[in-house]
């Protein structure tokens, strides 16, 4: 997908601007590639099992590759002046710093004293179930699958 097959097209392209015009064949090629990648990510997510984080990383990798395609060619960044790309880079840097440091903190609470990471479970679902029983949407003491307004969990 390098720049060689970008066709400097357009008969009446006014020289004064010299804006780079991309051939529609090239754009169509990018679209086809994106659709294939979408299919790939759906397939790998449902059929292929690489471990909990493995799937996540694979999905993220495919999504980043698709994003790079859209940003680089659909959004014309590849041929734009460089500062736009620098702006996008700093944006990603800020986002990664934000998510990274927050994850470091919340992920490492247990290190010195495990008691500090012990969370109590919220009873939102318990209250919801009691409310459901109170409103008669749910028979009191049997399992939830017999509930009339909810399709059996697949």
């Amino acid at each position, binding site marked *: 997908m390098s720049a060689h097959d970008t066709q400097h097209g357009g008969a009446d392209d006014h020289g004064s601007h010299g804006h780079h015009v991309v051939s529609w064949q090239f754009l169509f090629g990018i679209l086809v590639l994106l659709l294939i990648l979408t299919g790939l990510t759906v397939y790998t997510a449902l059929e292929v099992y690489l471990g909990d984080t493995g799937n996540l990383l694979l999905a993220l990798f495919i999504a980043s590759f698709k994003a790079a395609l859209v940003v680089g060619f659909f959004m014309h960044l590849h041929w734009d002046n460089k500062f736009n790309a620098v702006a996008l880079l700093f944006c990603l840097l800020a986002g990664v710093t934000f998510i990274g440091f927050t994850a470091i903190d919340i992920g490492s609470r247990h290190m*010195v*004293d495990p*008691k*500090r990471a*012990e969370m*109590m479970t919220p009873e939102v679902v318990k209250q919801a179930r009691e409310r459901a029983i109170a409103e008669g949407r749910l028979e009191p003491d049997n399992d939830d699958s017999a509930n009339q307004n909810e399709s059996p969990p697949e």
Partner: protein
Amino acid sequence: MISLLNNLCGLLASAPHVPVEGGVGLHRKGSTFVTQHDMLFWFIFWLSVFFFVLLMGLSAYFIFKYRRRPGVPAQRSASHNTPLELTWSVVPLVILLGLFFWAFHVYMDMHMAPGDAEEINVTAQKWAWSWVYDNGAEAQETRRIADQDVPVFAVPADKPVRLIMHSTDVIHSLYVPDFRVKLDVFPMRYTTMWFEASKAGEEHYLFCAEYCGSGHSQMGAVIKVLEMNDYLQWKQDNTLDDALSPVELGGILYRTRGCNACHATDDRSGEGPGWAGIYGSERRFTDGSTTTADENYLRSQILDPSGRTLEGYRNVMPSYQGMPERELNALIAFIKSLSAKGREELDAVEEEIEAALEEAEEDENSQD
């Protein structure tokens, strides 16, 4: 002019009444952390003073020496000097990073509790602390600071104490300035902190340092450091044993469960209504409905207060869901004891009990 100065000084320094002798501050050396912490604190202090005096002295000298004199131009001088600029970037960096490692070392000591610590469960709720010791003891003595009765917690001297803390509603923060310790207390999550009080017989303030609403400034406590055996004796005395009558137990719970943070035992109203005379009286709510304050009303208001709010008050009372039955009855008995109608009923109940006891004795006599 002199009188003006006197009032001003008088105004400034009128002798503050000090409920905890020794006051509070850097001069108080409450825990074993103090030596390490203060060494670091004063090192940073003198480092800052040195740089500050250097900078201000230099600029004051320049301002005086190079003040603008008409007709005299500024002399030429180099507009940048790389070696100088490098030194005054690298030298502070090295000093500060050295400071970081020293500070980190002290910090890790403060955050790693030794194994044999005495464990106390601390619960923070909107505007009161309650410490429950390992044998179920709770503080009963209170002290009046900053216009509020706050509990006095006992702590053993020269023994590590580990506080296992959680909050029931919002974020609070347990802060003892004299021990140089502070840690946030979170709802739905445990946090732990440790310290070792160094000198028996001293008393220290405990403040809430994370903003938690209108009672935040009165959510204090006093820590009393006792010798080990006094401490064990104190714990023994303060267990809520079963011999206590409901009204007495209710009185203790009134203080330890934080009711005193908002409710007064006379009819003066604070954040919440005063309890004197409310049992049996007519209670009007914000939505205009009224009801008589009987036992079920008191029970429902304690367990689920957000349902109905009394007219003229805000809906800020936390719910005491999960309070054991014995303590609930004791609290209700205590409230009843504060109003005439309540006292009659309590006396009536006592007479029945005595009557029943007498009958029981007669049956025994008649049997044998």
